[in-house]
């Protein structure tokens, strides 16, 4: 309410106690925000394998794109502008309330190690573009002022500063839980709006650097695992039906990635002319449940009519994972996908879902290199990946 003036000079921010303070003299640690430091090890919240429809739905994610009024969008801003925007956003994030027992960790990506950036991307806490720092118009670069705040230990919420938009708030949860994600985004959004003025237009809604995101600025996406539909040859039908509804279907690691292992992300394309409620209803109550039913039906069909085929595929993949000496990421993903199907259909008895999910994260280059404690070349990674997968899968045998 207080800081309405964003045209040029930096506004003042209320402390959580309500007292006002001037900007330049705050120690960040004192506000409960930790600067930098190690990225958590172990699995991350969206791979827990819990939540609604978790046999098919891996995770749900909501993301809101927001920009401050009176500043150029990051791709067109000067480096000095970007620094100032980052400072405002960082202070804003710092003053937000968060759950007891959790910590906000701020990563200034200008001074970060490439390995750290890779880990953040692999944990889906930020985009690849944000790691590179290069915008679609060719501006920016590794040293471009930008950062990401991650709320630990859950890693459910991350806030990207100076990605394509000034602020991108993301909430990710295991299973089908878009409504919870959206509610949490809205809480953060309201709290941020208490401090800064958002760029908003009566016709176009929340203004974003790319006009494909205007309106609600909201992207809802659900990651689904559809190996049975692939086997029964019905996957294309589902993909086409989703496209017809204006939804995008992408691979596991987001935009531009291949759908190895039959992991897909279903998300909305349209953000203008449909409210968040309508979007939510369409994806969470209509599209995803029907995709889930199709996949469950295909699984049941495989179990009754072609159980031998299903068992064969799952166990062949398990055999490769337990024995291979060189492993490419896509190959690992493909076999882990089939093993996951085998575990869920209870044809593979001695592997847990948690192990499979952990491996989905650990086989990626950044995590792989962290687990061995050094940088590896591509061919070294294939060896290390095969070793890691073999080790984990033979370990969990009784």
């Amino acid at each position, binding site marked *: 309410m207080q800081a309405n003036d964003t045209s040029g000079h930096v506004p003042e921010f209320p402390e959580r106690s309500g007292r006002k303070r001037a900007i330049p003299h705050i120690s960040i640690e004192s506000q409960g925000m930790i600067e930098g430091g190690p990225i958590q090890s172990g699995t991350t919240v969206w791979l827990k394998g819990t939540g609604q429809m978790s046999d098919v739905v891996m995770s749900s994610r909501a993301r809101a794109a927001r920009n401050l009024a009176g500043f*150029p969008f990051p791709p067109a801003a000067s480096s000095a502008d970007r620094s100032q925007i980052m400072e405002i956003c960082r202070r804003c994030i710092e003053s937000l309330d968060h759950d007891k027992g959790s910590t906000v960790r701020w990563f200034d990506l200008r001074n970060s190690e490439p390995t750290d950036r890779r880990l953040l991307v692999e944990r889906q806490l930020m985009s690849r573009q944000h790691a590179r720092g290069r915008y679609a118009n060719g501006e920016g670069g590794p040293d471009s002022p930008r950062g990401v705040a991650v709320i630990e230990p859950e890693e459910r919420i991350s806030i990207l500063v100076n990605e394509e938009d000034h602020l991108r708030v993301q909430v990710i949860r295991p299973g089908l839980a878009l409504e919870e994600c959206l509610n949490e985004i809205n809480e953060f959004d309201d709290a941020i709006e208490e401090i800064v003025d958002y760029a908003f237009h009566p016709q176009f809604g929340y203004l974003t650097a*790319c006009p494909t995101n205007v309106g609600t600025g909201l992207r809802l996406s659900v990651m689904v695992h559809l190996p049975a539909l692939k086997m029964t040859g019905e996957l294309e039908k589902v993909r086409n039906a989703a496209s017809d509804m*204006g939804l995008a279907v992408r691979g596991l690691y987001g935009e531009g990635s291949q759908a190895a292992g039959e992991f897909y992300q279903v998300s909305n394309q349209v953000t203008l002319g449909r409210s968040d*409620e309508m979007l939510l209803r369409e994806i969470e109550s209509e599209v995803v449940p029907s995709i889930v039913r199709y996949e469950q039906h295909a699984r049941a069909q495989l179990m009754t009519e072609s159980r031998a085929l299903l068992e064969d595929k799952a166990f062949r993949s398990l055999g490769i994972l337990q024995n291979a000496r060189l492993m490419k990421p896509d190959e690992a993903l493909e076999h882990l996908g089939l093993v996951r199907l085998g575990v869920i259909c209870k044809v593979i008895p001695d592997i847990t879902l948690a192990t499979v999910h952990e491996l989905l994260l650990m086989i990626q280059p950044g995590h792989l290199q962290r687990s061995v404690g050094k940088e590896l070349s591509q061919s070294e990674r294939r060896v290390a990946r095969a070793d890691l997968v073999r080790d984990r899968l033979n370990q969990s045998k009784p």
Partner: protein
Amino acid sequence: MLCECQQRQATIHEVLIQHGKKVERHLCEQCASKIGVSTDPHMPISQLISNYISGKNLSIPTVSDKDEPSAKKPRPGATPPCPSCSMTFSKFKDTGLLGCPTCYSSFQTRLSPLIARAHEGGEQHIGKVPRRALATLSESSGTDLESLLGSASEREQRLSQVRTKLSNAVEHEDYEQAAMLRDEMTRLASLPSSQIETRVVSSSSSVQETEQTS
């Protein structure tokens, strides 16, 4: 159903509303691509926009893009650059990115049809509004924003009530009631889009008017 060419099965169905009349066209892929109706459901939005901007997609009106071979020298009569960040429309066409919030007002006339196309006809924001923006906007411009969004949010509220009733009805296996509620939900949800469709009309000039169906 056969295509207008009477030779192949129609697989592309285009519905446009022009001068208050619904115009339906049923086309096969060959005819659709000849006419310039997009047939690729997987085309990413960025490509759709750039196709649209460069005038490849003929079913969309473009604003004299073809006589701008080099964007270097802004000709008189061309869209002036954004006064706030000096972004030019041709630079936006190259990158798909706008320079600052003011660009939306600076290029509003040329942007509006592009945005509507990218959002499947969506032209008007519906949903959440930053509280302070709401206050400022209705004060300064006297826009009808409050009532517009108020009614939308009322609609949302009604929708969520109906949804709750619906799930209760399903729980109690009252399917007759559930069907009625479902219809009401569809009707409520379709309100904003029908509003938008009528507004699309004026900009879809390239489609010829045919007889009114239903």
